[in-house]
């Protein structure tokens, strides 16, 4: 698991062409709408590779001089899921027994600052984007989550699919009661 606290763009990114960037942006925007619309099963079936790695690390607050490596065999993470684990989460939502999801919540995902470069592996790209997720529930329960995500996309049968996503929520203390939704 890759669990960086702060990330850097690689030294000489091979930025993708405009056509590819357009496709990447469409992928991320349509994926966000799919999740806003609660089409989780469709998302799992159509947007993910079967070797997908979906990661949201816990970010520590450490001095800059503290060179303790982070990220190898960590003892905590919010998400560190593979394809079956994501399936399990979706199956839970599909039971109709998740009381906090009824009445339906409003969750809105905002995608911005999309950029992309070719990955080392042919036919794969690394996409950067920033996100905001707004959640409003019940009568007045309101929270916002901010951060960035790095996605590895792979072209499979002419379609882009998500092969890896590392989500960095810009918070030490998650300022919400949970982060169980997909970002």
């Amino acid at each position: 698991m890759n669990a960086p606290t702060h990330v850097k763009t690689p030294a000489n990114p091979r930025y993708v062409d405009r056509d590819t960037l357009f496709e990447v942006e469409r992928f991320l925007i349509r994926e966000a709408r799919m999740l806003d619309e609660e089409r989780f099963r469709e998302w799992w079936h159509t947007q993910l590779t079967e070797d997908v790695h979906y990661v949201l690390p816990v970010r520590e607050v450490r001095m800059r001089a503290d060179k303790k490596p982070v990220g190898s065999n960590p003892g905590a993470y919010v998400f560190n899921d593979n394809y079956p684990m994501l399936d399990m989460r979706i199956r839970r939502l599909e039971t109709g027994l998740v009381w906090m999801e009824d009445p339906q919540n409003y969750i809105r995902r905002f995608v911005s600052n999309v950029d992309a470069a070719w990955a080392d592996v042919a036919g794969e790209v690394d996409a950067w984007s920033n996100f905001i997720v707004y959640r409003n529930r019940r009568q007045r329960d309101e929270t916002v989550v901010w951060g960035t995500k790095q996605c590895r996309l792979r072209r499979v049968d002419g379609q882009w699919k998500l092969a890896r996503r590392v989500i960095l929520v810009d918070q030490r203390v998650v300022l919400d009661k949970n982060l169980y939704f997909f970002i």
Partner: protein
Amino acid sequence: MKDVTKLILEDGAVQDRRIYWDQDIYEQELEQIFARAWLFLAHESQLPKPGDFLTTRMGEDNVIVARQPDGSIKAFINSCPHRGNVVCHADSGNARSFTCAYHGWAFGLDGDLVTVPLEHDTYYDAIERPRYAMHPVAKVESYKGLVFGTFDASAPSLRDYLGDMAWYMDSFLDVPGGVELLGPPMKSILNCNWKVPVENFIADGYHVGWAHAAALKAIESPLSPLAGNQAYDVNTGLQVATRGGHGFGVIWDAAAAIHPDGALYRDWIAQREPLVREHLGEWRARFYNGHWDASIFPNCSFLYGTNTWKLWLPAGPHNIEVWTWTLVEKDMPEALKQMMVATNMMTFGTAGMLETDDGENMEQCTGSNRGWVTRRGKLYSGMGQVREGTHPELPGIVGKGSVCESSNRGFYRRWAELMSGRSWEEIAREPHYAPNRQVA
């Protein structure tokens, strides 16, 4: 100080709702409970080397916990005695000293003032150093690796404070190699009173089948049949309230039950249980393979088996911070430790499938008390009160079945004792709850 006599009734089974809402009661809790009781600070494994430190909170007070050159552990308030600045902003690290960012005073690993910039030219070498040490936590003690601290010099020893709960916790603490906490801690918030999650962990086997029905189904573990309360047998567990407000419920033979693929863990237990039996006897071998929901008074909880370790940090009467670690045995193979982490994260991490269910309930249980009329009402936790009692072989008050509210009542009895403001000696002297009934 508020008279709490009327707030807890019927031996802990009835609570006045104001204890979950009112600011003045909360402040009395900070004074009578959080400034007196032993509070969880860390596990020793988090501070292996001299100079290792971490920052945490005791009640709403920020503290630094540091491993000393002599191997001992000390703790002190993370605020500079000069003008009050917070001194250390890192979650953890290794340091020789702590330097304040405002005027550069530096403090040793024990909190003593060691460096004063321009000391000669401004204080004329007349500074009375001991006066300016960082405020020490009065006592810091460990119990089998678990480090606690108290601001109250008159508090009993940690061992006495834990009382019978230590005997029970030995079931997993006193294994060969001991335990450790894996972190860093996850941190999130809940808009709830701090007592609500404590009681959820100390005594609430009841909600599992209903609140977690969806997760139980999705996880496809031996616990799945509990979903929707389709299965429950009173003989599959029990509940214990110990004298100090600590307590737990246990389901027998279920330590590994929540793990989606528990084979690795079950093998481990099968291999270790004989050692526990030999060392601690039959009962504790049973506890070793049970699944526990538990709380250590006042605000530390855990689920042995799952294996989550929680600290509920108060931040006002309706708000807490939730800190989460994974508890493992040190001798477990790395792959098993990783599985323990994975299960904990998937169930009780910040995106955990059961954490999500609980957080919602905890917030709503608190928030409803905003209503003025609502708040003048009571809440009830009388479940199993008619059958609880003493046990011929087990210490504390024992309730029947894992679905029971005995340890909830034990928690509130202790809460009322401390909130009264009486001294530790007075509390120890007076008679306490002892139902004249024996549980087989």
